[in-house]
């Protein structure tokens, strides 16, 4: 990194510190497990993996969100509101989107434990915009989505639990869920088992007895909880599948409704109006998620951010399943530099999955400082 670039990055971090964020420098070498658990196996091919003398799998950190989260959880501050900032190298096997580099610098902020969700969200987006402006990009393209809205929609729909799980998971992993909606099915290729009728009848009339029967049958067969799922868990899903019956493919009207939802977007004000209308017409309760959406937009406006510049889309996701709320990316409007320049979002579930006993809200973003520097020199 050149001296000029160093100075620019350091002054960015200094501005984060002035905003009250504690600077941390997590280890470069980390256990690989949390990254594979939380970012998915797909990241394995892009990580630099190694093994220690005891056979534990280690990696060069491919991002800093998980390392900072782990440091916070291990510290005495765990559970309390505390924000952190960082500037450090991350390592990924090169491919086009990392600009051919195998290591690159990221700056960023992670904010933990704040109960004032909308305020923290708005502050994060404002700081992200400040970071872009720090490199001379004052009017980036702002793309925004909200995972909580999709979750609320799915929660409100009358659907079998298996469908809800599947739709939420696919929303987080597919760039365009809409295209997939048509061909989604659960075991549709398979004929139902011959005992399905009996089970459906039984589960319909007396769910408790059905559960006891399946559990007993499994025990008689000498089945033990091999493979980490309890007999009760297996019996539950077995009956759930049996009673799913005809619903092995997504009901047409539901799939149409989801497609309609995923087509909504625009500026936050326009999107909020559309979403209120949608919720009323479809008779689904999205109130809590929509209230948060609107108060966040209001706070952004109060911070002087021109809301008409925000391109909100209900279908926008970041392809990482730990996000639970707002997600955003800043891009170069002239596309001189490809890929996101700043990106982040809310990830309230992450710290629990990293071992926290109680849920801790979290929101943050990362800055691709080298991309921004390139943009600055291109300007």
């Amino acid at each position: 990194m050149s001296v000029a670039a160093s100075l620019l990055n350091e002054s960015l971090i200094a501005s984060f510190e002035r905003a009250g964020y504690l600077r941390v420098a997590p280890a470069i070498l980390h256990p690989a497990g949390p990254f594979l658990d939380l970012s998915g196996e797909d990241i394995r091919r892009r990580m630099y993996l190694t093994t220690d003398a005891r056979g534990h799998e280690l990696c060069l950190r491919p991002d800093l969100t998980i390392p900072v989260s782990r440091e916070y959880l291990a510290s005495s501050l765990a559970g309390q509101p505390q924000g952190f900032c960082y500037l450090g190298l991350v390592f990924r096997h090169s491919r086009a989107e990392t600009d051919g580099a195998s290591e690159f610098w990221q700056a960023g902020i992670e904010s933990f434990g704040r109960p004032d969700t909308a305020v923290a969200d708005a502050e994060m987006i404002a700081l992200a915009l400040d970071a872009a402006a720090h490199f001379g990009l004052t009017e980036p393209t702002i793309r925004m989505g909200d995972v909580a809205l999709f979750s609320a929609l799915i929660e409100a729909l009358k659907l079998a639990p298996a469908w809800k799980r599947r739709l939420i998971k696919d929303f987080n992993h597919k760039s365009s869920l809409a295209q997939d909606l048509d061909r989604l099915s659960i075991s549709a290729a398979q004929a139902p088992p011959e005992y399905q009728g009996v089970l459906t009848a039984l589960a319909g009339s007396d769910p408790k007895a059905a559960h006891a029967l399946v559990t007993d049958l499994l025990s008689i067969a000498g089945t033990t909880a091999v493979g980490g799922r309890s007999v009760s868990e297996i019996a539950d899903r077995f009956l759930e599948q049996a009673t799913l019956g005809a619903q092995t493919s997504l009901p047409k009207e539901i799939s149409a409704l989801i497609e309609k939802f995923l087509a909504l977007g625009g500026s936050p004000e326009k999107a909020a109006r559309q979403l209120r209308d949608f919720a009323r017409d479809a008779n689904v309760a999205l109130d809590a998620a929509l209230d948060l959406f609107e108060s966040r937009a209001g706070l952004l406006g109060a911070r002087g951010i021109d809301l008409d510049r925000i391109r909100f889309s209900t279908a926008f996701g970041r392809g990482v399943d730990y996000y639970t709320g707002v997600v955003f990316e800043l891009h170069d409007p002239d596309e001189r530099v490809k890929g996101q320049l700043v990106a982040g979002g809310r990830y309230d579930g992450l710290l629990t999955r990293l071992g926290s006993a109680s849920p801790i809200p979290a929101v943050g973003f990362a800055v691709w400082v080298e991309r921004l520097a390139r943009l600055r020199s291109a300007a």
Partner: protein
Amino acid sequence: MTHPFVIAVPAKGRLQENAEAFFARAGLDLVKPRGARDYRGSIADLPDVVVAYLSAAEIVDLLAQGAVHFGLTGEDLVREHIADAQRHVVFIDELGFGHANVVVAVPQAWIDVRTMADLDDVATAFRLKHDRKMRVATKYVNLTRNFFARHAIADYRIVESSGATEGAPAAGTAELIVDITTTGATLAANHLKAIDDGVILRSQANLVAARSAGWGTAERDTARNVLDRMAAQKRARAFREVRTRFAGCDAALLAEAKQRFAVETPFGGPTSSGMLTLHCPPQHVPALARLLREKGAEHVSAVELDYVFSRANALYARLEAGLGPAS
């Protein structure tokens, strides 16, 4: 000759025995001049060829690096260890032994899981319930990842396992496995069952060429010699030679024989004296003999073939198509 033509062959086990038998059938006698424990050998009457006896993993590595020309190894290992395998190697032929499937297997107790779609759902439910991802024990990390991605399964973790993978669920180190199986007996003994649509790869021993090995005219010539014998032997094994002679043999009869029994006429139709030579797949020989006699043949003889050399060599053609023109 400065650069020998290297063929890598498995150094031990059933695969080695099968490989040697395969070469022997093709008239390629593998010889170890310095005794059975030697790891380098040659082929009688092909002085340009060096046979390197190596472990299966080494063979795949050397193919990827182009340090050997041909390797004889399981398709599963090639697909697992060489990313984007088609760019680095040419699959010349399946050899008909070393059959094994790479499959996804789950505990038999999972009576609610029959398909990959079920597994997808269970994986997500497992993550939501236990706050961790389901673990898949396997040595096929890449095959597993690609297959699971094709089925949109995201909620899983791979636990690398180098031996006794099928014991992992019982030992509590994984929930399910991806492993190689031939009969399914090992799976059953460990209370596991394969998922209906969970066959990742139907593998068998393959003859594989390394694209980045040296492929000058000399090497191509040697490859053509080796493949010529393999192709001649392969074709010979696929047919019996059926001969007969009778007056009523005509084009209509030949057309019927071709249509019903996939018979070939390598030397054309009947000669002026009515002599006819046919190549017929072994399973159709009795029925063909019956047809010929019904049409008037007094005697029909059928013999096994050692070699059928043809002008066109499908195996060499495949190699050349894969390698591109000589540099």
